[in-house]
């Protein structure tokens, strides 16, 4: 179980569920894996930055109150997303920066995990991924050479 995120875990998961709806279907193991990745990334950053991000997560939960009448955690996923979209357009750059930073961590925890495992990059979660040692080029379309 992660520790760095522990004080803000409910809000962090609310943010994740709004930003990547697929996380709404996470089980305990997936959350643990995702949060461990996020913690590892956060842990490699300066302590001041870690604290800024964790503080921002706390603040976002409360900022939802004047915007929607409830804390972020208490809102349904769609309402959370609406609140966060307002914050990502906020006139205060610090708020936009905070949203951007949190979304980057959440995207990393989701997309670098579920699409990883030797597949490199690829299609939907059900398959279609490209293994690292693939050799075939796709269909060719001719084009003029310039340069």
């Amino acid at each position: 179980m992660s520790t760095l995120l522990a004080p803000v875990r409910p809000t962090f998961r609310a943010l994740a569920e709004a930003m990547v709806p697929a996380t709404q279907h996470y089980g305990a193991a997936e959350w643990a894996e995702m949060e461990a990745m996020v913690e590892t990334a956060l842990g490699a950053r300066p302590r001041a930055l870690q604290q800024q991000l964790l503080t921002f997560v706390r603040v976002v939960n409360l900022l939802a109150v004047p915007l929607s009448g409830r804390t972020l955690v208490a809102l349904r996923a769609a309402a959370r997303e609406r609140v966060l979209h307002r914050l990502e357009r906020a006139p205060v750059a610090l708020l936009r920066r905070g949203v951007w930073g949190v979304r980057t961590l959440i995207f990393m925890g989701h997309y670098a995990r579920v699409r990883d495992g030797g597949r490199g990059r690829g299609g939907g979660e059900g398959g279609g991924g490209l293994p690292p040692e693939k050799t075939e080029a796709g269909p060719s379309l001719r084009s003029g050479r310039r340069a």
Partner: protein
Amino acid sequence: MYDVIIVGSGAAGGTVAHALIPLVQAGRRVLVLEQGPRLDDHEFTGRELEMANALFEDGGGVLTADGAMTLAFGRAYGGSTVTYTGTSLVPEPHVFEHWQVPGITHADIAERAARFAEQNGVHFLRDDEINENNGLFAAGCRTMGLEAGRFPVNTRGCKGSGLCNLGCPNAAKQGTHRVQLPAAERAGVEVVTRAEVLRVGEREVQVLVHAKPSGAKGRESEWAPGSYTVRGAAIVLCGGSIGSTALLLRSGFARALPRLGERFTCHPAHILVGEHAQPIGQSGFPKTYFLDRPDEGFILETCMYFPFITAKNLTGFGVDHQRFLDAFDRLQMILVLAHDKAVPGNRISVDANGRAVVHYTFTPAVRKALVAATRLSARIFFGAGAVRVHAPSADPPLLTRDDLPYLETRVHERHFLTHRISVSSAHMMGGCGMGRTAADSVTDAWGRVHGLPWLRVADSALFPDSSDVNPYLTVMALADRAAQALIDDLGALRAAAHAA
């Protein structure tokens, strides 16, 4: 005591090390200090996060001072040549005319670049090696009466993994880690990895050699972990625009070199995606075509990135954002890069701990160029058959064909809201610009630092302004010039070092 110490092993460091082979064969001692690790072939797994953490500074997540742009640069044996795509262009003559550095001409750079192109196996892909993602770009251009140029690329035996930016898993990309550095080491050049240069002093560097972290990729350092002071008759900085500049700044050279840190440019970029109705061929070499629009201040390039980096570079989040990522195998991608120009204020400094800080503001011209590039890319995507396009500087960022008549208003600079839209850069340039005197620059046209003959710069920090195109061949050409001057000067430098 070494004759030459080279700091960094990327396009510049590898080139200088290779060029100094005759000196080594004549008994001179040449040392390359590389901050990053040396990976073995089997360690290039193509896994996104794993490779990003192994090969890039801060995992590719270095931010500008205001957090509005991500800067990605390599930190490994071979530097960024391990992680670039290998596209090999020489800037147009007008770039060098604009630089106004005496002695730097298009003809000279092109002649040197041609030598490196041959050394690195640069060639055009065969038509049957061009995948559908790239072909769609060329087809989309043709619907608008535009002809895409084809990139020369530096691969040998490419198997089309498409993983160039995570380090080629098939050892096909001919970066300095495959060509120049191994040859230099065979000839006797000494390369030490995990060696962080903390300071440069009078003919010496202070080095901290790091132990290999537990579980990390790469070999142990060639030297035992610890602190070293290494002396050399000449020191050549090849740590990249940010690395070399920050090293000089934290070493106290700012007073003697008042232009140090200035003239930083970086080709700010967006990753754009167009969604097709059916899966498209993404397998294969990812970057084949470009469309240069110098009058509009941008260049479009084909690309194919990985899930996390793609997710991060799209604007927004939530249901619509996820729909694009769920359609990954139906995505066509275009990278747009602005031809930014050196302006006051966009510069490199260091913080109290000596860490680099990059100050960068998007000028109106850059914003305009990125927005115009996005509009043109949207037309290319739709021309190629895409059904939806993600446009960062639109709000909401989702475009359909119904938006085509309204692109001028839907995609607009008023939506270029920093910290909402993602902007990234992998072409850092400037900070130790070339010129005439210390009043206007940091070095002369041969990388000699003004007033300090034992100190040279040979990397992209030398650029007095943007190269407008992918800079790697230009870096190699400038490094070759710096090496040539060093060979010419080394006798005097050795005499001065011994006298000191």
